[in-house]
Structures are given as structure tokens and as C-alpha cells.
């Protein structure tokens, strides 16, 4: 609690604390998008022919598509020809160890609170840091390799494990899936690849940190996680960006494959720059995340804390194909000022005895709009499918909006599907109770919101939970009058 208070005080002075720019020389592609840019990126990455073909195919398909407009968000259209699709921090040669990373760059990550050195020694979290779409350094590689776990940047994976990439890339989110996934497939510049072999339980949490640094760039990273039979991994993702007046685009794709008895837990704390108080600038976060429980008894769990971005458009989904498989989605989405979030999940029940659970908490303040959009689909053969969904919204202020769009489609009589949603504000009696016991109103609100989000926060790994709690308080700072 006292920590929360401190955070609130600190942030009363600073607005978005990750808003600095690091002066790193970057290797960039000119703005604009055409086949040459796609070739340029592929060449930069020294990619094999098949990869380039894959990208070009995606690009050609993208040209035929049009930007989706069904989401409950409004924003000026993105000019896809004004974006730089490639920006890599300049490096002289391939690095052999972490110590060779540009000191300036390492300072960046220290500011972010993920000192690579520290991480390496103390916290037992393997980090893959991605800056402006290019993977900078991956820690703990050696220790992981001993277990047979592959955790590296996507470009490295293309070079060194082409058979795995060929097999799994695009298997969950096909390049033609939607507008942004097609764009990502064409121009993705890096990302993380993680492969957990049969029967291995990853001894540490794997983590990626994304940061957009350069101006006018878009970030298009791609994450692929493959969990073989009986394996387990917990994966963390975090992100920040500098404060800039113009909007920047982030269109990532995350794919997860869980085979028989495997379990993948994916946690995100999304804190892209949300724009200033007037709604100027900020990141467009248009992300496609999907996992497939391909094997029996497999499990995929998404946990997300969404506090950043000007516009969010994101639906982490699970295809429950294997019998007895499980999908989970826990989300806290906070919007303040002029932020807009349209987020939720899809649970597609295909196998027998599949179960899914959705817990979504939306908090809107200021002039923001917060939407939950979800789909629960039970197919004809999904005998004994079970779903429970809960969507709660909390409104702080009378200028914001909360929306719920749950789609439920059931084609099997043995299915049990429940959905419930509530919208409310913080009760005056609750505040009064806290005031009475000596907590001022702002602290009381922070306390109540933490309680509101607790069910989701409890799903986060320890280090992340602390950060997420702070973020919650920061995002809502000043919204309580």
C-alpha cells in the first residue's frame, strides 16, 4: 500500500516515465512500403529464399485487403507509406556475449528496469530484448540450451532452426488471417522464438521486452512459442515507447502451439505510450495473438495488463482442439484520458471436454472508451465443453464509456456456457468506509481498484504483478476528483 502511495506521488510529477529517447544510431529503411522494402528487410536479415517468398506472398495478399473498421475505436487512418518498416540499432558485428552490447543500449534497458546484467545474475529470468523491432540481446541462452530449450531472436531462429520455423510459423495465425497479421507477415523485422522440447519444464521465466525508440517507425515483431509434449513454460512480455506527438503503429503477431500435455502461460504488461492528456500521439496497438491447444490435456493461459497505447485492438485467443484442453484469459484493461481499447478474447471449443475461463476487468477514466469483445464458440463435436466468462467494468467519471460485446455461439447440447457482466462505479459507501479509517480518497480509490483487479493480478508472475500494480495506479493518477 505504501508503495502504491509513493508511486502515486512520484507520478504526479512525471507523466509517462518511459518517455525518453535513447540516442542510438539506427540502421533504417526509408519510409514507405513496397516489394523492395520487403526484399530489403529480408536481405538485411540475411534470410533464405523461402522466407522471402513467404513475406512477399503475405505482402501481395495484404495489398488485396482493406483495413478493418468493425472495432469500437476511432482514429485517423494510418498512412502505411509514411512508416519506416525497419529500424535497427547499429551494431558493428555479431555479438558473442552480452558484454559486447552497446553501453548506451544497455543503459536504456537499465532505465527500463531490466538491467540485462542484473537479470542475468539475480532474478532468474531469461530476457530477449527487442528494440525498434530488432532483437538486441538474449540472456541465459547457455543455461537454457543445456536443457534443449531454444530461446532466441526470430532472425537467429530462421538461420539456425529453419525446419522448426518452416513447420510452425504461420500455423496458428496464417499470414492471410487479417489485415494486420498480413502486414506483419510481410515486414516483421524480428521477435522471439521459443521452443521447449518434450518433457522439459522451463526452470525460469522467459521474457521479451519491446521498445520503440526511433521516430516514424512501426514495430512489427513476431513471437512464436512451441511447447512439445509434456513441457511447460511461462513467458513474459513487456513494452514501452518514447513520447512522441505523432502516432506510431505496433502490429505484432504472437503464436503459441501447445502439444499433448503441454502448458504455456503467457503474461503481458502492455505499457506503450498512451499519448498525452489531449490525446495527441501514442501508439496504435493492433496485435494478433493466438494459441492452439493442439494436443490432449494441453493448456494455454493468457494474462494481460493493458494500460498503455492510444488505441488497442487485441484479442488473445485459444483454439481448443485437443481433447480435455484448457484455455484461460485474464485481463485488466485500463484506459484514461483519450485512450481507446477494444480488447477481449476468442475461445474456440473443438475437442471433447474442453474448458475455458475468461475474466476481464475494464477500468475507464477521463474521456476514454473501453470495450470488451469476446467470442465463445462451441462446435458440434465439442462434447461437454465448459466456459465461464466474467466481464466487469468500472467507470471513473462521466465522460468515459464502457462497452461489452460478447458473442456466444453454441452447437452442442452438452455444453455449459455462462457469461456475466456488470458495470458500476466505485460505491460512495466504499470510499466512505476507507475515509473513515483514515485513508484519503485517492488512496481509497487505488485500494478499491486493486481489489477489483486482484483476480487477474494474482495470475501474474511475482515481479510482473508488482510492476502491474504500480502501472494501474499511474494510469489512473489524477482521474479521481
Amino acid at each position, binding site marked *: 500500500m505504501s508503495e502504491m502511495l509513493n508511486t502515486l506521488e512520484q507520478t504526479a510529477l512525471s507523466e509517462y516515465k518511459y518517455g525518453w529517447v535513447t540516442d542510438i544510431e539506427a540502421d533504417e529503411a526509408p519510409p514507405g512500403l513496397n516489394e523492395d522494402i520487403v526484399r530489403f528487410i529480408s536481405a538485411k536479415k540475411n534470410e533464405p529464399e523461402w522466407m522471402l517468398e513467404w513475406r512477399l506472398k503475405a505482402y501481395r495478399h495484404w495489398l488485396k485487403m482493406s483495413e478493418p473498421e468493425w472495432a469500437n475505436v476511432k482514429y485517423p487512418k494510418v498512412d502505411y507509406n509514411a512508416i519506416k518498416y525497419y529500424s535497427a540499432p547499429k551494431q558493428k558485428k555479431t555479438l558473442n556475449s552480452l558484454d559486447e552490447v552497446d553501453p548506451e543500449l544497455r543503459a536504456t534497458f537499465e532505465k527500463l528496469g531490466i538491467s540485462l546484467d542484473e537479470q542475468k545474475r539475480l532474478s532468474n529470468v531469461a530476457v530477449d530484448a527487442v528494440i525498434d523491432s530488432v532483437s538486441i540481446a538474449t540472456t541465459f541462452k547457455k543455461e537454457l540450451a543445456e536443457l534443449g530449450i531454444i530461446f532466441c531472436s526470430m532472425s537467429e531462429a530462421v538461420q539456425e532452426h529453419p525446419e522448426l520455423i518452416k513447420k510452425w510459423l504461420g500455423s496458428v495465425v496464417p499470414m492471410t488471417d487479417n489485415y494486420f497479421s498480413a502486414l506483419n507477415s510481410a515486414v516483421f523485422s524480428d521477435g522471439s522464438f521459443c521452443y521447449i522440447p518434450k518433457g522439459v519444464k522451463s526452470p525460469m521465466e522467459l521474457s521479451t521486452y519491446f521498445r520503440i525508440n526511433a521516430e516514424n517507425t512501426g514495430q512489427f515483431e513476431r513471437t512464436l512459442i512451441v511447447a512439445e509434449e509434456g513441457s511447460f513454460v511461462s513467458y513474459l512480455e513487456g513494452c514501452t515507447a518514447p513520447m512522441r506527438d505523432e502516432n506510431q503503429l505496433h502490429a505484432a503477431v504472437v503464436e503459441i502451439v501447445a502439444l499433448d500435455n503441454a502448458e504455456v502461460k503467457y503474461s503481458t504488461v502492455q505499457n506503450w505510450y498512451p499519448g498525452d492528456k489531449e490525446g495527441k500521439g501514442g501508439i496504435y496497438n493492433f496485435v494478433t495473438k493466438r494459441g492452439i491447444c493442439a494436443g490432449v490435456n494441453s493448456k494455454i493461459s493468457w494474462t494481460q495488463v493493458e494500460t498503455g497505447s492510444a488505441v488497442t485492438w487485441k484479442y488473445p485467443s485459444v483454439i481448443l482442439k485437443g481433447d480435455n484442453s484448457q484455455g484461460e484469459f485474464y485481463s485488466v484493461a485500463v484506459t484514461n484520458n483519450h485512450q481507446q481499447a477494444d480488447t477481449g478474447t476468442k475461445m474456440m471449443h473443438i475437442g471433447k471436454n474442453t474448458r475455458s475461463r475468461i475474466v476481464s476487468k475494464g477500468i475507464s477514466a477521463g474521456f476514454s472508451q473501453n470495450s470488451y469483445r469476446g467470442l465463445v464458440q462451441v462446435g458440434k463435436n465439442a462434447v461437454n465443453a465448459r466456459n465461464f466468462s466474467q466481464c466487469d467494468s468500472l467507470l471513473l467519471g462521466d465522460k468515459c464509456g*464502457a462497452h461489452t460485446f*460478447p458473442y456466444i455461439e453454441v452447437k452442442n447440447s452438452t455444453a455449459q456456457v455462462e457469461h*456475466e457482466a456488470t*458495470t458500476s462505479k466505485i460505491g460512495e459507501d466504499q470510499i466512505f468506509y476507507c475515509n473513515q479509517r483514515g485513508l484519503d480518497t485517492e488512496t481509497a480509490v487505488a485500494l478499491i481498484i486493486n481489489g477489483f483487479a486482484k483476480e487477474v493480478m494474482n495470475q501474474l508472475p511475482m515481479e510482473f504483478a508488482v510492476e502491474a500494480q504500480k502501472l494501474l495506479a499511474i494510469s489512473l493518477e489524477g482521474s479521481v476528483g
Partner: protein
Amino acid sequence: MSELKELIQNKLSKESFSGNGSLKALSQKGLELFNEQGIPTVKHEEWKYTRISAALNKNFSYAEGATAITAKEVEEFRLPGYEAANELVFVNGIYHAELSNIRSSADELVILPLSEAVKGEYKSIVDSNLGHSAGYHKDGINALNNAFAYQGLFISVKKNKSVEHPLYCYYINDARTVNVLSQPRTLIHVAANAEVKVVEEEVTIGTSDSFINKISEIVVEDNAQVHLYKIQNEDSHSSCVKTTHVRQIGVSKVNSVTITLNGGVIRNNLNFILEAPGCESNMYGLYCVKGSTHVDNHTIVDNKMPNSLSNELYKGIIDENATAVFNGKIFVRKDAQKTNAYQSNKNILLSDTATVNTKPQLEIFADDVKCSHGCTIGRLDDEALFYLQSRGIGDKAAKALLLHAFAIEILEKIELEPIRQYVDQIISERLDFEI
């Protein structure tokens, strides 16, 4: 379709039609919009789960006016309790005065063609309310009915009158020789301190295809009370789109119960626009369907002013190849503080070929509100079944008992005893349940 457009155009250009002001404008605009939009496809978000074009593409005849339907034929589908009711008969979408039977006196109840009402003392009411639903349904189906608004009916319940005889409205399609598409249209005005009960039923005579595209707009003033009951029990070759648009412009109470038992493709749009502070709206629905019936209930509650209460409960029992769709929207506008809005949708699937698509939707722009929605899809509770079986009740009887209990919660909301008993009997027979 061109034949249809010509028909409307001819009617509108007739000299006798000039001076119909808002009515003519609505018809004309409806025609234009229909030309532009056509029949909505499943790509239209509001029609995502209901393929209405298949039910409409059947070479319908748009023959205007009454056919040779006799009072004797009307006799056959009269609802119980008709002896004490005002019976309004619509044939192929047009009000038929000779077959109707108005028991209430003219100082309680006024029934006029819309084309007359738009000129006389009710002009301002018609002008400000007719076509209000078009703001909520902007698709071609709605526009098509608007184009036919000139043949609509105006009903007014006078101030301070509690109409003793409920209004029984029969919408008859005479499909004995040709496929019939009809476009009934009503505007019901309930003045301050008045009370009225309205029961609606669709009837198809004959075995050809029938389609009713109906809009009924209801305006409710201060301290008025309205009860709306719909009974839908037709054959599989009869489809309909029924839009009921209720504007509560004064502090008032409106209850609606929609019972769907059988039919082809059935789409019900039910809108409640709460424009005065402190309104109460209750919407109940029961769909007990089998065969290949497709029932789609779309509801909207638009809270515009503070302190209102809305309560919504829709229940469904879906068997065989039937499909049920539910979409409930609750809007709470910025000024509608202290709104309480509840919504619940419960479904029981009895077969693996039955489908339920449900989408409860909340859109809230005010912070001091209590809104909740819930929906469930499942089967009968195993424990409850076991309990009954352990007390010597057979499997079949136990299931019937539980399903009947599930349905009764809605039936109890019908405050018109003969109608309630009538529906209960149909459902009990359907479920093999003995009362």
C-alpha cells in the same frame, strides 16, 4: 422487386395522397433507402446470425388490400378471451374494419388510418413519432416497411382511460393461392394516465409462403401503463420480421412478453427508448422451438434520462434443428445517471443439432449506474433430475417438470389470464407435461 417499387411510387404520386406531409415523406424516404440498401445479408452486423434473404427470395406477391376472407375464417384463430376484447384484424398487412370488432367506446379508443390521422387533431403526434424507429434500424427491411407506411393504422388511447377490453391484433396473410409478403404498420399513442393491454398474433391461411414485415411504434405518456404480448405460433413456411418500438416520453411503465413457439424465420426487434426520468420497462421472452424454426430476438434499451429501471429476461428451450439468436443491447447515455439495467438470457439445448447464438451487449457512457447482464447456455441440471428420479418420478416426466418450471417464470408475467392459460397449454403439450 421492381414491381414493388412501381407500386409504391404509383401510390405516392396519386393526387389524393398530397397533403399527407410526414407520412408521404416517410414512405418516399423508405423507398429510397430500400433501393439503396436492399435486403440485409449476413455481413450486416445486425443480421449476422439470421439469413433473412433466403426467407424473402420467394417470388412474393404484393397484392394490396383485402382478399376474400370471411368472418367464419377469422373465427378459427381467435384467441381465448376474445369475447371481452377489441379485435383488430389486418389482412395482408392492411386493417380490415368489417372483420374487426371494437367493443370500447370512441371516448376511450380511437382507431384511424394513418393517412387520416396525419391530417387531423393527431397531426402533431403522428409527425413527431411516426418513423422514429428508423433511427435505430437503418437496414433495407425497415426501410421497406416505411415505404408502405401510407397504408398504416393509428390507434390512440385517450387520456385518463383504462381500456377494459384488451386489444387483440390478428395479422392475417392469405397465402391460399400466392406467396404473400405483407407490411403492417401501426402507431399506438397512449395518452397520460391511460392503460392498455395489446396482444398480437400472426396467422397464415393456406400453405404458400408468407412473410410479415411489421413495424409497430408505441408512444407512452406520463403515468401510462402498457402491456404488450406477442404470441408466435405459425408453420415453417411463415416467416416474419417484427419491430416493436416503444418510446416512453413520460414517467411510465411498459411490460412486454414475447412468446415464440413455432415458425420459419422469426426476427423480433424490440426497442425501448426511455426518454423521461424514472421510467420502468420490463421485457420478457420465451422461445420454445423445435423443427427448423429460426428465432432471433434483438432488443434495445436506450436509457436517455436518469433514474430509470429496465429489466430483461429471455429464456429459451431449443430442440431438434432449431436455432435461437439473442442480441440484447443496453445503452446508457451520459445523462442517464442512476440507471438500473438488468439483462439475462438463459438457454437450454435439447439436441446436438440445435444452435444458440447469443450476444448481450452493454454500452455505457454514464458512471453512476448499475448494469449487469448474464447469459447461460446449458442442459438440465443433473442433480435436479436425480433428485426427482430418486423420488420416483420417471426420467421423461422429471425432464418435463423441470422444463415447464423453466418456462413458467416467463408465463407468469402475462397478466391476461386466458392468454396465459392458452400459452401454458401449448407449452405443456409440447413438453409432454400434465398440468
